[in-house]
């Protein structure tokens, strides 16, 4: 579904991703782990054409992604939930969802409300006044409004209490079960491994592990990569 071939990224001469080649298959739920600066966010941003100077090939369903035009890749079905700043804080929850859904007619709002009832309950609340967990749920809901085939998430558990992290992971599981491919970049390994079937570990821009989540959990020297 999403294929990376020999992808390299460097910022100001400093290499961040080195010769990355991998394939994300339809319907998979994949986690990407790594220490700070390992290249996780760059890999996600490459996937939507948001990194200038990336070399190599990234293709989505056999067609190369459009570089420098995040919105065009989104319209093709690649959803991205960036880290942190992913909701429009000055707008109400309902208006956030309506902005997200303007390019995707077909009434997915009801589906989003069914999946996340809290968004309907908080419809008139300003998004900036929601809790961090609710903002994350809203960001997920907004992304679903675009009917993505694959959903890329950049550290959705950052800054959230453990109980809220479980809620977010449950939501992602439901999204994956409904047929959406999920790729999640995370630092919270234990919580994420409960969700994913496959894990990839990046270290200094290279893939050092790519296998089943259970295999990664059983690795005794796991923490040497972080």
């Amino acid at each position, binding site marked *: 579904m999403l294929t990376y071939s020999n992808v390299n990224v460097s910022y100001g001469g400093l290499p961040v991703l080195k010769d990355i080649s991998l394939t994300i298959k339809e319907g998979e739920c994949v986690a990407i782990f790594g220490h700070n600066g390992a290249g996780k966010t760059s890999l996600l941003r490459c996937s*939507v054409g*948001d990194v200038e100077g990336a070399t190599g090939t990234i293709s989505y369903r056999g067609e190369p992604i459009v570089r420098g035009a*995040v*919105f065009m890749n*989104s*319209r093709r079905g690649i*959803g*991205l*939930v*960036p880290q*942190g*700043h*992913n*909701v*429009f*804080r*000055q*707008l109400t929850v309902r*208006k*956030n969802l*309506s*902005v*997200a859904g*303007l*390019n*995707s007619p077909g009434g997915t709002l009801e589906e989003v409300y069914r999946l996340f009832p809290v968004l309907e309950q908080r419809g008139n609340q300003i998004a*900036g*006044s*929601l*809790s*961090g*967990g609710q*903002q994350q749920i809203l*960001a997920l809901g*907004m*992304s679903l*409004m*675009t009917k993505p085939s694959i959903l890329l998430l950049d550290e959705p558990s*950052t*800054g*959230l*209490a453990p109980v809220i992290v479980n809620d977010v992971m449950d939501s992602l599981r439901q999204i994956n079960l409904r047929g959406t491919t999920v790729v999640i970049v995370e630092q919270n390994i234990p919580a994420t491994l409960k969700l994913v079937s496959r894990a990839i570990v990046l270290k200094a821009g290279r893939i050092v592990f790519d296998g089943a989540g259970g295999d990664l959990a059983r690795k005794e020297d796991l923490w040497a990569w972080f």
Partner: protein
Amino acid sequence: MEYILTIVVLIAIFVILSSSYNLVIGYGGLATVAHPIFYALGAYTSALLGIHFGLPAAICVLAGALVAVVASILLALSALRVAGDYLLIASLGFQLGLLQVIKNFEFTGGPGGISAIPNTITGPWRTPAYLLICGGIAALTVWLIARIVHGPYGRAITAMRDEELAFSALGRNAMTIKVVVFAIGCGIAGIAGGLYAFYFQYVSPDQFEVLHSAAMLTMVVLGGMGTTMGPVVGAVVLIAIPQAITFLNLPPAVMAPMQGIIFTTLVMLFLFLRPAGLVGPLSRDRMAGRTALEKSSGGVAE
């Protein structure tokens, strides 16, 4: 009485100008200082068409707006790919460069400007008529901007301004929205320029210097950036205050610096004490403070 009415006409023109600047910088979040040059393009185009072709004033003003729109799109397509400091610098270069062109061409009157712009309305009702026209267009501008920003497109503008990557990731083309907002704002500034040219019948480059950006910014900040009525209040206060100072009979050497000091002091006071401006709600001050705090600490609300 004529003097007072002239001040009110000037206020109406600056309501148009500051409202259009607010659309660009307040709602669109596009940090530009080039707004005076689009005002100038409207004024010069209208004046030259009126003088050389004798076209009706309305046609000249609309043509001035069109030239401002075309120029704004040219700037937007190159400069709006960057943001923040880079956009500021690009707009500064555009403003200074184009003003130099105006100053150095013979047909624009050089540094001396253009006088003898046709008087389209004559007689004792000239100023009241202009007051109606300028006031009407100012009201129309405020209404139009309110319609834009409070509708679905306005929500998209706000979303694009606040979180561009998240906005693009939802399949929305941020660049198109930026160009449209910029073009609308600059086109309206062009209309303000045309009205100025026909009312005062004289335009010169020093009326469109980059320092006028500071005056427009002061109007927007003082009134309330990102509010519909803020620039209206800002324009009224900041045109009225300098005129009130003239009644103090101060020497010209003191007058000009004093106006500058007042503008600067007001901007600083409002930015620190009342960032939402005169019209913005108090809650927005708290929100602005909270957002700034979160952004500076890199944290997320919980």
